[in-house]
C-alpha cells in the first residue's frame, strides 16, 4: 500500500515537473530573439547634419546611431543606463594613479565600405571630439578637458592620458554621441561625416529622404555575430505628436523612442490593449527654476528659499504625472541611480518636506523678513507646451498660495536661450537633459557663472565650485556620494540658487512585438537597435 502510494506520488511529481519544464522551455523559446522584420519608428525631429560629434538633438541619434559603434557603450540591458560596457573596445585597464586608460580593440571589425577598423580610427575620432581642428565643431569638447593626450601605440591599442584622475571618464567614453569614424576620411575632409555615413554599426545606410524617412538595412558583416536581428529599420520624420500616436495606434509604427504623454499612453492602451506594452522610466531631464540673482529681490536667499518652500512637490507629482511627462520628486540625480538622494535625506531639503503647511508658513515669514511680501514677478517660460506649460501653471498656483503674484511670459523656443543668456528675466524655466546620470555631467551646470555659461541663475559660489571639484576627484564611491550630498544641500537648501520642479518621466508605449529594447532614463541611449527583434516578423 505504501509502495503504491509512493509510486502515485512519484508519478504526479514527475508529471508536474515535466509540465513545468515544458512551460519554461516554451517561455524561453518565446524570449529567444527572432530574426527578420523591419522596425518602423517615428522621429519627432530631423538630423541637422549626420555628424553626432557636432549635434545635440535626438533627431540625429534616433535614425543615425544604428550605423555606428562607440569605443564603449552603456549596457543596453541596464535600466539605469549608467554601466559602461565594451563596444569596439574589447577590454581596458586603468593605471593605479587613474591617469592612464589603455583600451584593447576588437579585431576584424570593418567599416561599411570594407576598410578595417584600427586604433587610428578611434584616435582620429576622439581627436576630432576632444581637440577639434579649426573650423570643426565639437559640441561636447568641454566634457573632455581632463584629457591630456590620445595615443595609438599599435593597431589594436588606444591610450588616453588624463590631466587628473576622473571617476566619470569611462562613462564619458560611453557617450552615445562619440561615434567612431574612419581616420582616412577625416584626414581628407573633417566635414565628410556631416553629409555621409560610413560606420561599423549593425545597419548600413540605404536612404534619407528629407522630411520623409530614413532607411537602414542589416549589416551582413557585423562584427557581433548573430546580430542584428532585424532585417532593417525605417525612421519616419513626423513632427506632430498626434500623427506619431496615430501611427502607433494604426500599427503603422512599432515604437517612438523619445516618449509620449500620459494621455497618449492611456489612449493607446485603451485602443490596442495587449498589442501595446508600456515601458516607463524616470527621465534624465529636469525642469528647474532659475531665479536671476542679478535682479532684486532674487539676490536675497530668503526670497529664493521662500519660493522653493512654497512648492508641494509630492502633491504636484501625483497630479501632474496624470497630464504631463513629469513625475519623480528628485534632487540633482535621477532616483534609482547610484548617486541619487535617498528619500529620507531628500525630505530634509527646503521644499521637500512632507508638511506643506509648515513649509508655506516659513515661506511667508521669510518673505516678510526680506521685505518682499506681496511679491510680483514674471516667470519666463519656453514656448514648448509639454511639459513646460503644465509645470508653469502649477508653479504659479503654488506661489499664489504664499501671496506671490506671477505672470507668465512665454518666449518662442528658438528665441528662449537668447533671453536666458542675456539674463533678460526675473525668474525663468530652465532645463537639463543628459545622456547618462553622472554627477560630473549633471552638476556642472550649477557651478559659478564665471566657470559655466549655462548657469542662468547668474551667481558665483566658490563653495559650490570646490564641492564640484571634490566630488569629481573623489577616490571612492562613498566619498563621492558625501560631496554630492553636500553640493546638493548648498545648491537647493542653504542657498536655493536653483529650484528643482519635477523630474521628467519617460513613457514609451510600443508594439508588443518589439523585444530586446530596454527603456532607460535617457532618450539618447539604446538606439543602436542591435539587440532589438520583432516577435511576429514583419507586419507592415
Amino acid at each position, binding site marked *: 500500500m505504501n509502495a503504491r502510494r509512493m509510486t502515485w506520488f512519484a508519478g504526479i511529481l514527475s508529471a508536474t515537473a515535466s509540465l513545468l519544464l515544458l512551460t519554461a522551455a516554451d517561455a524561453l523559446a518565446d524570449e529567444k530573439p527572432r530574426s527578420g522584420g523591419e522596425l518602423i519608428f517615428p522621429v519627432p525631429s530631423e538630423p541637422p547634419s549626420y555628424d553626432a560629434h557636432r549635434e545635440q538633438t535626438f533627431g540625429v541619434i534616433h535614425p543615425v546611431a544604428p550605423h555606428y559603434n562607440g569605443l564603449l557603450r552603456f549596457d543596453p540591458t541596464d535600466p539605469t543606463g549608467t554601466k559602461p560596457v565594451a563596444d569596439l573596445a574589447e577590454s581596458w585597464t586603468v593605471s593605479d594613479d587613474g591617469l592612464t586608460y589603455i583600451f584593447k580593440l576588437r579585431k576584424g571589425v570593418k567599416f561599411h565600405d570594407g576598410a578595417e577598423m584600427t586604433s587610428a580610427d578611434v584616435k582620429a575620432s576622439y581627436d576630432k571630439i576632444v581637440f577639434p581642428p579649426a573650423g570643426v565643431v565639437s559640441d561636447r569638447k568641454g566634457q573632455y578637458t581632463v584629457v591630456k593626450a590620445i595615443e595609438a601605440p599599435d593597431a589594436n591599442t588606444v591610450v588616453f592620458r588624463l590631466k587628473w584622475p576622473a571617476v566619470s571618464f569611462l562613462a564619458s567614453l560611453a557617450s552615445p554621441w562619440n561615434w567612431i569614424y574612419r581616420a582616412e576620411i577625416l584626414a581628407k575632409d573633417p566635414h565628410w561625416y556631416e553629409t555621409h555615413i560610413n560606420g561599423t554599426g549593425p545597419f548600413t545606410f540605404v536612404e534619407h529622404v528629407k522630411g520623409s524617412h530614413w532607411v537602414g538595412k542589416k549589416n551582413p558583416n557585423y562584427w557581433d555575430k548573430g546580430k542584428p536581428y532585424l532585417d532593417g529599420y525605417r525612421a519616419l520624420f513626423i513632427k506632430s505628436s*498626434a500623427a506619431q500616436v496615430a501611427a502607433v495606434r494604426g500599427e503603422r509604427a512599432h515604437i517612438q523612442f523619445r516618449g509620449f*504623454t500620459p*494621455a*497618449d499612453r*492611456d*489612449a493607446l492602451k485603451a485602443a490596442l490593449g495587449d498589442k501595446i506594452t508600456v515601458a516607463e522610466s524616470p527621465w534624465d531631464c529636469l525642469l528647474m527654476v532659475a531665479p536671476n540673482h542679478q535682479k532684486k529681490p532674487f539676490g536675497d536667499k530668503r526670497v529664493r528659499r521662500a519660493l522653493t518652500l512654497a512648492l508641494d512637490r509630492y*502633491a504636484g507629482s*501625483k*497630479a501632474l504625472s*496624470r*497630464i504631463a511627462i513629469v513625475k519623480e520628486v528628485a534632487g540633482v540625480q535621477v532616483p534609482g541611480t547610484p548617486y541619487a538622494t535617498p528619500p529620507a535625506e531628500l525630505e530634509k531639503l527646503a521644499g521637500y518636506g512632507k508638511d506643506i503647511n509648515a513649509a508655506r508658513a516659513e515661506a511667508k515669514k521669510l518673505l516678510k523678513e526680506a521685505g518682499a511680501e506681496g511679491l510680483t514677478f514674471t516667470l519666463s517660460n519656453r*514656448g514648448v*507646451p509639454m511639459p513646460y*506649460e*503644465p509645470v*508653469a*501653471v*502649477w508653479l*504659479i*498656483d503654488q506661489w*499664489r498660495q504664499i501671496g506671490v503674484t506671477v*505672470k*507668465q*511670459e*512665454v518666449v*518662442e523656443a528658438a528665441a528662449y536661450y537668447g533671453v536666458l543668456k542675456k539674463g533678460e528675466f526675473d525668474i525663468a524655466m530652465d532645463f537639463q537633459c543628459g545622456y547618462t546620470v553622472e554627477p560630473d555631467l549633471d552638476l556642472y551646470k550649477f557651478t559659478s557663472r564665471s566657470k559655466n555659461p549655462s548657469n542662468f541663475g547668474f551667481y558665483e559660489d566658490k563653495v559650490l565650485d570646490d564641492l564640484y571639484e571634490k566630488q569629481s576627484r573623489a577616490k571612492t564611491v562613498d566619498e563621492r556620494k558625501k560631496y554630492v550630498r553636500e553640493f546638493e544641500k548648498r545648491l537647493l537648501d542653504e542657498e536655493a540658487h536653483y529650484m528643482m520642479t519635477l523630474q521628467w518621466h519617460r513613457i514609451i508605449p510600443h508594439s508588443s512585438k518589439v523585444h530586446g529594447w530596454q527603456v532607460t532614463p535617457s532618450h539618447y541611449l539604446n538606439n543602436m537597435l542591435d539587440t532589438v527583434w520583432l516577435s511576429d516578423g514583419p507586419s507592415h
Partner: protein
Amino acid sequence: MSTATDIASVDTVTAADRGRRWSAVVADFCRRRPLGAIGAGVVVLMIVVALTAPGIAPYDPLNIDFAAMLAPPDAAHWLGTDAYGRDVLSRIIYGSQTALIVGFGAAFIGATAGAVLGVGSAYFGGRTDLVVQRFMDIFISFPLIILALAMVAILGNTLPNLIIAITVPMIPRCSLVIRSSALSIREMPYVDAARAAGYGHARIILRHMLPNVMAPYLIMLTSFLGQAILLEASLSFLGLGVQEPTAAWGLMLRGAAVEFAETAPWMALFPGLAISLAVFAFNLFGDSLRDALDPKLRTG
C-alpha cells in the same frame, strides 16, 4: 420764473420724447430684425456676464484643485473641470472679460483708425490718397491671421500687444470701405461750404465728414468685434495670445483640452461653444445693423 418752468418742461418733454424715440427704434429693430435682436441680446448678456464675473462665477478661475481634475459636468461643476481641476464654467465667465477687452479694444481702435485714414485719404485725394491707399493695399494683401501672427511674433504676446496685433490688420479693411463712402461725401455742397468758410482740414474731416460715415463705421465695428474675438481665440489656441493661467476661451481649447479630447470632451466643447455663440451673435447683430443703416439695403 415762468420762463424757467417752461424751459424745464420743454427739457423734460424732450428727454421723454428722446426716451420714447429710442424705445420705438429698439422695438422697431426687434420687430423688423428678430435675428439681429437675438444677436444683440446675446452681446448684452455677454457684457453683463463679463462685468459681473466676480459675483456670478462659482469658483476662482485660477484656483487649482487636483482632487477634481478632469471631473465631468455635475452639480458641483456644471460644465466640468479642466486638467488642473479648475472650474470650466468659471473660466468661461472670466474668459468673456478677455474676449470683450480684446474684441472691443481691437475693433474700436481698428475701425476708428481705419475711418480716420479712409476719410482723410478721400478728403485730401491726389498724392496723399495714392500713397495711403497703396500702403493699405500692401497690408490688405496679407491674410488677417498671418498679419496678426507676424505682429505678435514681433511685439510679444502681452494683452496690449495682442490688441495691437489684431487691430493693425483691421485698419486697411475699414479704411477702404470708409474711403469709398467718404469720396461721395467730399463732393457734397456742405463740405465745399465749410471749406469756403475757411475751416481747417481737421475740423472738416472730424465735424463734417466723419459723422456722415457713421453707418459704414458702425457696420465695420460690429463685424470686427466678432473677427477680433475669433482672432484672439485663434492666437491663444496657437500659444501666441494671452498666457496661462489667464482665463481665455482660445487658451481653454489648447494643451490638455486636445490631449484629453476623447476622455474629457467638456474641456474643449464649452469654450468652443462660447466662442461660436459670441462670434455668431456679433455677426447677426452686425448684419442686421448693416441692413438697418444702409439705405441701399433698407427694405421698407
